[in-house]
């Protein structure tokens, strides 16, 4: 049997060979960056349970496999709702469409094109917020990603149409295939946009290891959605690194429905005054799913606001993990931070581990966190029962209501409707789309 260190070595060798076989002409500094990241991954290795950040999430099964690139896919169906859309299939950009009239306000490039046309931009902004030198999976992605999507919204423009990035993972067979999607979202001063990222596909032995970098310049505004609906066995580890400049605002919604072993990391730095960050999270896990939401909000500049609400519903033998850190730097006075984490346990075999943290080095702040773990409220159930609703339906309604708090904050209608219907169907409730058809003909 191979030692883990040998497997990480083999993994890096495989991917280095694979990457050499392509013809992308990367700027030298980025090429060096890949090399450094490969060294960082070889040094860091896969995280062990004794690592405080991975205390509740065991990734040892990742280390058992030498991951190979997934092969190109021939055909893929394109969602029918209107959006500026890019599709990454098995790590490669295979489709770009819908830019049309928006072409002068937003540019969306793949890695090849960005390297050719915007080398200077990449030199300046690529890899600026990802902490690849300290994080094993960020290092792995930085060393191995084969393609990327680079979104740039020009200063002062507002893009009314959602920008949709679909990550489709379709391994050929159950042999341990990985893809390393990579996204950079850059909003210039005063611009506004909505980005929807969705993940689908995967199988018994596949691995999605992604990095999303989001940079908001002054007074930019981004609505960001991450919807993960992969196969229930896929391993999904994606880091989202966000940097907010003065007066900018991010509204992020992270929804996890699929995946076998899921780790969503969200690392936010508020670097300019009056930045506003809202993180809403929802995860539904059943079967043997393991969903870990790991968030860190750093208040570097004074006068910023952060608001975080994560909700989880766990049934069967599912395991939910929440780590939420609010870090207030010295001098970040007038910080207002609020974090809430709620988990609903529906089965005795489900587990939840919650680790909310406040680390505060400034005095004139208002920071709170709250965490609850429990069942459905008996009094609420009773109320519904007295109104003649069956026990099962009452239960389903309450579960739906618990999740709806997050879903109702999704402003992209097609995404919200789809999630609502999914949840209603799961809870055996009448679909809202049917209701809508009746009420709004």
């Amino acid at each position: 049997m191979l030692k883990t260190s040998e497997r990480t070595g083999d993994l890096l060798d495989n991917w280095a060979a694979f990457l050499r076989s392509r013809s992308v002409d990367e700027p030298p500094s980025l090429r060096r960056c890949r090399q450094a990241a490969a060294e960082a991954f070889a040094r860091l290795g896969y995280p062990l349970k004794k690592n405080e950040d991975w205390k509740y999430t065991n990734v040892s099964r990742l280390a058992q496999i030498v991951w190979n690139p997934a092969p190109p896919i021939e055909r893929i169906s394109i969602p029918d709702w209107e959006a500026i859309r890019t599709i990454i299939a098995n790590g490669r950009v295979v489709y770009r469409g819908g830019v049309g009239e928006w072409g002068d306000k937003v540019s969306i490039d793949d890695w090849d094109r960005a390297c050719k046309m915007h080398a200077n931009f990449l030199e300046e902004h690529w890899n600026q917020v990802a902490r690849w030198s300290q994080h094993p999976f960020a290092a792995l992605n930085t060393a191995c990603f084969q393609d990327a999507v680079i979104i740039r919204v020009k200063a002062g423009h507002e893009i009314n149409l959602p920008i949709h990035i679909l990550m489709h993972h379709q391994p050929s067979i159950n042999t341990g295939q990985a893809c390393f999607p990579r996204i950079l979202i850059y909003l210039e001063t005063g611009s506004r946009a909505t980005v929807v990222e969705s993940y689908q596909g995967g199988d018994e032995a596949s691995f999605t290891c992604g990095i999303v970098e989001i940079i908001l310049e002054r007074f930019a505004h981004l609505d960001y959605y991450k919807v993960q609906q992969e196969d229930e066995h896929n391993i999904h580890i994606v880091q989202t690194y966000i940097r907010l400049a003065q007066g900018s605002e991010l509204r992020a919604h992270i929804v996890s429905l699929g995946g076998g072993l899921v780790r969503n990391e969200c690392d936010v730095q508020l670097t300019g005054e009056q930045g506003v960050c809202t993180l809403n999270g929802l995860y539904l896990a059943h079967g043997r799913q393991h969903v870990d939401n790991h968030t860190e909000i750093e208040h570097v500049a004074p006068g910023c606001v952060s608001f975080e609400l994560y909700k989880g519903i766990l049934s069967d033998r599912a395991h939910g993990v929440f780590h939420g850190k609010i870090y207030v730097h010295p001098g970040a006075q007038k910080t207002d931070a609020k974090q809430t984490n709620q988990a609903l346990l529906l089965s005795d075999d489900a587990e939840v581990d919650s680790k909310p943290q406040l680390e505060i080095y400034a005095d004139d702040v208002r920071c709170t966190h709250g965490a609850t773990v429990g069942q459905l409220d008996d009094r609420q159930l009773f109320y519904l029962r007295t109104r003649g609703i069956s026990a099962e339906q009452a239960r389903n309604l309450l579960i739906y209501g618990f999740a709806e708090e997050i879903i109702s904050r999704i402003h992209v209608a097609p995404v919200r409707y789809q999630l609502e219907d999914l949840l209603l169907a799961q809870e055996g409730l009448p679909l809202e789309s049917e209701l809508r058809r009746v009420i709004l003909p």
Partner: protein
Amino acid sequence: MPTDTATITQLTQREYEWGFYTDIEEEKVPKGLNEEIIRTISRLKGEPEWLLEWRLRAYRHWLTMEEPRWLPNIRYGQIDYQDIHYYAAPKRRKPLASLDEVDPEIRRTFEKLGIPLEEQKRLAGVAVDAVFDSVSVATTYKEKLRELGIIFCSFSEAVREHPELVRQYLGSVVPYNDNFFAALNSAVFSDGSFVYVPPGVRCPMELSTYFRINARETGQFERTLIIADRGSYVSYLEGCTAPMRDENQLHAAVVELIALDEAEIKYSTVQNWYPGDKEGRGGIYNFVTKRGACRGRRSKISWTQVETGSAITWKYPSVILQGDDSVGEFYSVAVTNNYQQADTGTKMIHIGRNTRSTIVSKGISAGHGQNTYRGLVKIMKGAAYARNYSQCDSLLIGDKCGAHTMPYIEVRNATARVEHEASTSKIGEDQIFYCRQRGLSTEDAVNMIVNGFCKQVLLNLPMEFAVEAQKLLGISLEGSVG
């Protein structure tokens, strides 16, 4: 409030009033730690073979352990474990026949600390075990307690007189291999208190131990064991002080509590070890393992602590809720001023059904202090209908300090209900303004606000302690607002 700065500066410079040193002849074992030293300590104390064996097992295990260094907000210099006298005791002229024969010098020390050893002078209703460096020098009200069958004596005495009890319970809650400092304590522990309350007895007075570190270059490694048998009740208090010195001294104690069916133990601490000076020189490293086991049904263990002293405090008084319907409580006030660091909290391990726990922690940071609440609430699979409520509030005074909250919540049972709330805020300027408007000085206003902030915890202290704790809070924070 710049106008108050002058008075504030004056007040912060107030000396630690318990910082004096008693010049007394002491016998010490040589510096260093090895099996020979452990054998010497054991021989000096006239211990049975099994206890020596236990110490040696702990020592051998300790050698394989690493000193914990991973806590991000706790920074301290290297501790040279070979540069400490592991046993220091005042020289005895002859064996004591009664309390009156306590060395007058020691007696005066305790009087100065407000702990007179004459029974008639004591506040009625408190029995004291006084521990001076490595030995217990006196225990009051022993006879009276004995009439009820309560055993309250020094640990060494318990080993001699009640070996069966000690042997049964020693290390049963905190095993010798539990952690680095517990292992060190198990190897070299010197003295401490032992309490046994027989079935159905409600201890009529507060039992109390007063710990005093006196000698230079020593550490204090005491061990306390309290057993409350079926249906009994005991309230135990603990206080401590040490002289002012520039070097750091190590205090690594272990406290084990055992509550059987329907028994209740209330354990209160007012910790006032020397915190170091304003530049952070000196002070006690207070690395303590405290744990209670609610073994029986409907048993209850309640920890209340007021932590104002020590350069570094590192302790997590915990409760293992084994018995069905058992209750664990943790009430804590921790104050860090100047360069003090505190990392404290609790662990509530719910094993039995219908177990309940409450955590109320109030942290106050001032100056360059770093104050961390670190706690674990663990609901095991069998702990149906377990309930926990935690509340952790931090108050920040000044912009150089830090306040951190790190709860860990692990739930394995769907019928459990766990709630955690935390907040961090500044002492309200509007509150101070309101008080000032009504003629209170800033100092008094801060005192009042801080006392209000801590009230929920202080209310849980026995009366004699509550007064002292309130005074201490005021003194620890004086001058921190400006």
